């Protein structure tokens, strides 16, 4: 064993400096997870403000200008502040333990990649108090609304995006280096748990597309301050180019937010079905397939910009193809459950809800792939319903499932099962009440990102708002449950779950501060 990680064998430092200077993967994982939870609540409050304004037609609480700032910040914070850091946090905690490594491959960089984030988001949130207000052009920041017509705070937004990008890239490099180089002897690629596999593929996606995002915001910065015209038609540029470059990043980004979720669910379902994952190799290959395809479908976000017929048909075909590997995954999960011996602890409940609700999101995705039909769906609440189904009961539920699943290993105590179930049912019901009616108002013709709407959309909007508040406040149960688990939960065994298998469960609960200092031998 070498590298800087295993040389010291003492426990954590005490006080604040433990967290500031830590290079321990478990500490950094914890930091990431708490950070993402804080961001989740922040972004959630913005969502509730949006929903509260949309409770009734007319303008009640906030003005359109501020409404646009809220939708923009909600999107950015949830994508870059909540979902992505949560997955990186889980990766930090679990990947070294799953592959039998003592720590991440680059522990110092690991510390750095976390500590950039609070600064990036402080900068981003501070724009809310700036003159002219926060970014108000949607999280997709289409030019020229985000360049020529942007508030002055756009410069801070650009720097914040750069910092988040650097953080993600460093995280991805670290994860790849760990998986490729620090596996315990005998842990070949074939034996890697699916969470590790999906994260490996996700990390490659991050390396491929985060620099492109950095590129596109740099071009914006140059357009705004240095007189170039990448996106300005007057100088020979093209606003549609922005959309192409953005979605070249944006579509793989969607998979960055869902592939690790696939991995988590693929860990949980076999455990509670007490049965090996069905078609493990196919799962890996289907993930790779989705990753490949994600690079050639970006323009399905732009069916209405006026592409030539050939382009339109090409992107329609390519997009529809994604349904195949995604279907393979869902079928494999169901086949894993089939003829198993199922129990329904909280992580399993979240995983089951994930399978059903993510699939519903997948169905609406398939509908959106049909280009002519997309002309009707595009930029309506149908799209909002679609991607929230994929991201909330998809990515977010998977993260919660993972948190409940591994919490006993992290803290050494079980969370309260009753409270977990209450949290699950409140979230499940809340999510569906919020997002299901959005399909209807979308089909009926309500555009997205509007602060006020025509009367025929009123009732479903009211319903959605009620659901949003149920979902939002039920997350406080989660917070309480986690705190309860850390402080005085029932003592957990090393194995934790009856059906669990994998290296992480061979460690004591709670996992010691330094684990696998001596590499374990795998079979």
């Amino acid at each position, binding site marked *: 064993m070498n590298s800087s990680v295993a040389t010291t064998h003492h426990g954590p430092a005490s006080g604040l400096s433990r967290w500031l200077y830590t290079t321990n993967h478990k500490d950094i994982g914890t930091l990431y997870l708490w950070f993402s939870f804080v961001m989740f609540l922040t972004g959630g409050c913005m969502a509730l403000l949006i929903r509260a304004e949309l409770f009734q037609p007319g303008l009640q609480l906030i003005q359109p200008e501020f409404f646009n700032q809220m939708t923009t910040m909600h999107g950015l914070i949830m994508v870059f502040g909540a979902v992505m850091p949560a997955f990186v946090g889980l990766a930090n905690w679990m990947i070294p333990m799953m592959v039998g490594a003592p720590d991440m*491959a*680059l522990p110092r960089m690991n510390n750095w990649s976390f500590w950039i984030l609070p600064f990036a988001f402080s900068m981003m949130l501070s724009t809310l108090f700036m003159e002219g207000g926060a970014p108000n052009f949607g999280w997709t920041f289409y030019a020229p609304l985000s360049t020529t017509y942007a508030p002055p705070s756009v410069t801070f937004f650009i720097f914040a995006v750069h910092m988040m990008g650097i953080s993600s890239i460093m995280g991805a*490099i670290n994860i790849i280096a760990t998986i490729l180089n620090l596996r315990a002897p005998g842990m070949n690629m074939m034996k890697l748990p699916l969470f590790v596999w999906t994260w490996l593929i996700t990390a490659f996606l991050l390396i491929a*597309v985060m*620099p*492109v995002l950095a*590129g596109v915001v740099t*071009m914006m910065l140059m357009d705004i301050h240095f007189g170039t015209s990448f996106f300005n038609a007057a100088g020979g540029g093209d606003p549609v180019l922005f959309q192409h470059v953005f979605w070249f990043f944006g579509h793989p980004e969607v998979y960055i937010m869902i592939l690790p979720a696939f991995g988590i669910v693929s860990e949980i379902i076999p455990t509670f079905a007490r049965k090996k994952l069905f078609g493990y190799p196919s799962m890996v290959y289907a993930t790779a397939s989705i990753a490949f395809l994600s690079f050639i479908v970006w323009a399905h976000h732009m069916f209405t910009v006026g592409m030539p017929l050939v382009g339109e048909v090409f992107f329609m075909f390519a997009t529809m193809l994604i349904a195949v590997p995604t279907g393979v995954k869902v079928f494999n999960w169901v086949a894993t459950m089939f003829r198993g011996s199922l129990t329904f602890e909280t992580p399993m409940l979240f995983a089951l809800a994930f399978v059903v609700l993510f699939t519903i999101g997948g169905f609406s995705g398939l509908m959106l792939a049909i280009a002519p039909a997309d002309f009707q769906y595009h930029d309506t609440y149908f799209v909002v319903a679609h991607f929230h189904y994929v991201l909330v009961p998809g990515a977010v539920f998977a993260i919660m499932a993972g948190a409940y699943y591994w919490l006993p290993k992290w803290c050494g105590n079980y969370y309260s099962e009753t409270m977990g179930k209450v949290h699950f049912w409140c979230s499940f019901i809340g999510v569906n009440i919020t997002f299901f009616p959005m399909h209807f108002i979308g089909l009926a013709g309500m555009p997205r990102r509007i602060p006020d709407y025509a009367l025929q959309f009123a009732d479903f909007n009211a319903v959605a708002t009620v659901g949003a508040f149920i979902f939002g406040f039920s997350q406080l149960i989660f917070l309480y449950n986690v705190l309860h688990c850390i402080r005085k939960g029932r003592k957990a065994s090393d194995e934790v779950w009856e059906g669990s298998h994998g290296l992480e469960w061979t460690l004591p609960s709670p996992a010691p501060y330094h684990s696998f200092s001596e590499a374990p031998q795998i079979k």
Partner: protein
Amino acid sequence: MSIIHKKTRTVKWLVASCVLMFGFGFALVPIYDVFCRITGLNGKVDLIPAQPSSVIDESRQIKLQLVAVNNETMPWEFKPKTVVTRLSPGEMHQTAYLARNLTERMMIAQAVPSVSPSEAAPFVQKINCFCFERQPLDGRSEKWMPLVVSIDPSLPKHISTITLSYTLFDITPDTPSTVTLSERGSL
């Protein structure tokens, strides 16, 4: 090979890929440009003079529409001499756009052409066009800006209407409007 070595190698590769992809993001700009010119995506057309074609396809007539659009804060009057013309592919069409500067000051404009359907863009040949260069115009004056255009006879058969639009942008340096920056603050 020691683990440290392997690790360093992996990291080097990954960092190199990142730099490469950052470059690729910028490379998308010219790639997109070339792609547009070949396919006519977005109706983008060449800003260099074309050679007039020697054959005229008398067998069909194309409806050519000329459209003028003012971008925001472009206070000129801007319109084509004739909106609709019918011509055979290969035939040369000579026309002009009127530009009238309604303000008191000298301004410079740039016209940006666009063609719809975008599929037809590569077949619209501009032999002479005011969009090739920036157009200065003194305050309270006007001029006819020439346009000589023809349609390539190899235009696909199913296209019978072509719209050529020009959007006029204000590119006057420094003083975008009569109201200076300090005055704008007190508006």
